[in-house]
């Protein structure tokens, strides 16, 4: 098991012939992901590395029955691409694109609500279920199949965490980068629920950062539902000054809200182990899991 995507996921790449799209399609194919089609308007009928290219997602869906899409379309056109995927009935839509205007995402998020689509991103590294499939841009080789679920608002910080987990002997069931923008398709709570149901997952790591209230909501969910698996968290931005956008559009402390200290407090009150020193994350988790009888993945 794993969540959202696995070896059976049939992936469509929107923007497959672009610079980013083509590079990462190759990487995904190398990882073993089932990329069954791509979409680039006006390039329908051609092939990219034996992957058929279509003009529309609707057509791609009809011809290949793809159920996951990964979007590498420039920001001004990405909202349209998300709507297209959702309208065509794609179940999991991963939008890698960075820099989409937030009000465009407000419209898109409300439009696809109730449409049965799970949107991951935008501005995210994607999803990987190690050993099964990779839908996104993360370096596959640092991952290892295992029992820890990872949910993150960040990109390279996730790689760091995954790297330490793998070094510590713990593989991952699924790692999801939910995106660094203020309005994204899913939140920590959504994936906590998914991991709760997933038998492969025995522990969850949340990688949060300043801005918004998603970490507090996760803490609330964990405490309200007596979450049955151990949860760890790391929050980036303890030293970030207010009113400055720290790289991510979503990482900003404004009106005195969204600071790291409040998040850490809420998480700890919910019984979540918050790791403050990133350099010790892997060993801390190893120690804790071992002491709870959850052994490393061999």
């Amino acid at each position, binding site marked *: 098991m794993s969540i959202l995507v696995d070896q059976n996921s049939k992936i469509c790449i929107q923007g497959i012939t672009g610079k980013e799209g083509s590079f990462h399609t190759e990487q995904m194919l190398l990882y073993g992901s089932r990329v069954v089609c791509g979409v680039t308007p006006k390039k329908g009928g051609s092939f990219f590395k034996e992957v058929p290219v279509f003009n529309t997602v609707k057509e791609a869906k009809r011809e290949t029955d793809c159920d996951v899409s990964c979007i590498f379309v420039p920001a001004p056109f990405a909202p349209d691409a998300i709507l297209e995927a959702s309208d065509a009935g794609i179940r999991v839509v991963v939008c890698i694109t960075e820099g989409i205007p937030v009000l465009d995402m407000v419209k898109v998020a*409300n439009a696809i609500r109730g449409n049965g689509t799970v949107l991951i991103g935008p501005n995210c590294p994607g999803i990987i279920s190690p050993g099964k499939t990779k839908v996104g841009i993360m370096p596959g080789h640092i991952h290892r199949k295992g029992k820890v679920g990872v949910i993150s608002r960040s990109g390279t910080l996730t790689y760091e965490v995954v790297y330490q987990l793998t070094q510590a002997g713990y593989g991952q069931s699924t790692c999801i980068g939910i995106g660094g923008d203020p309005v994204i398709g899913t939140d920590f709570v959504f994936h906590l629920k998914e991991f709760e149901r997933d038998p492969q997952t025995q522990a969850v790591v949340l990688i949060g950062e300043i801005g918004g209230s998603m970490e507090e909501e996760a803490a609330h969910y964990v405490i309200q539902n007596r979450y049955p698996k151990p949860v760890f968290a790391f929050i980036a931005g303890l030293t970030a000054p207010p009113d400055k956008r720290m790289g991510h559009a979503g990482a900003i402390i404004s009106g005195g809200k969204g600071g790291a200290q409040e998040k850490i407090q809420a998480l700890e009150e919910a019984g979540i182990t918050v790791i403050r020193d990133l350099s010790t994350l892997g060993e801390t988790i190893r120690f804790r899991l071992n002491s709870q009888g959850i052994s490393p993945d061999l």
Partner: protein
Amino acid sequence: MKLHEFETKELFKREGITVPEGKVLESIDQLDRILNSLKGPPWVLKAQVHAGGRGKAGGIRVAKDREDAFKGVAELLEKRLVTAQTGKDGVVIKKLLIEEFTPHMGEYYLGITLDRSKALPALILSTRGGMEIEEVAKEDPRAVSKIWVNPLWGFSPYKAREILFGVDPMPDLELHPPLEGLFRKLYEVFWKYDCSLVEINPLAILEDKKFVALDAKMSIDDNALFRHKEFGEDHEGKDPLELEAQSHGLSYIRMNGDVGVMVNGAGLAMATMDIIKLAGREPANFLDVGGGASQEMVRKGFEIILKDPRVRTIFVNIFGGILRCDVLARGMVEALSGIDLKVPMVVRLEGTNVETGREILKNSGLKFSVAQDLKEAIGLIRG
């Protein structure tokens, strides 16, 4: 991007929201002509700086006559204004807005902001204008009415009823249609200009039941600036290194410490700053070269770090994903070759193509310490 009060007011005027008549002044020489063109005395002098708490800090003055006006301008223009939000250094006042005085019988607060967790714009009305909305919400929650509007449904009339009937004391019924009209206009402005915030505080209610926006705030989503060429770049009060970084697509923020930092990815960059602090040092900057930076951007990033005279240590923390370690290494070598680096540099490389990257650095002849992992890096920085 935050607009200045006078910019927001000009925009409001174009969109049909009434604001006081006023002119912007950058030199006291202009004052005479401006006063001649405005009704008054009295006049209002308002410092145009990007910081809340102007009023309390003395940045807003009412001039009761010409002499008073000249005195006020002389005391404000080109002076540093220290407010609760500026830090102890304050900001230099480069512009003043000179306005006609608007006598009025009441003040409201109207605002629209984005509620991230609901992914909906929130419209806020308070009958206690002139105060910070957060304070009113704490002190007197019944005086604040807040609704969320689904952008696909639009601002349907019932939404106006919900907000207007939902506040205590309720505005007079005759004020409902103009207030609804004003909210409708603000809502249009919010979408049209890709705002993350638009605010009128206070909104003056005149004797004849007309409204005038006495103060106006607007923030534009940076990601949407590509489709709003009407907003020029605003460099006022910005750090020159931040501006230079911005022009090269780098996300750089100056901090108060002496460890120059280069990281790829915003989350890892924040976490790296946190780690430096845990090690007992302070970062000199936040610098995210981006997940997919080019060799050129890496080089530029180094140049900017080196331009900062406060830097006593450099820490490069790269986790190669899309940005490959060899690209990073080449950019580094390019930036540093021929430079006599006077400060110690700690490099921690991991991820895609890490071997090639380490090889390039090793053969470059540059002076630096290599850390195998974060823990080792911390130790080296602590020194």
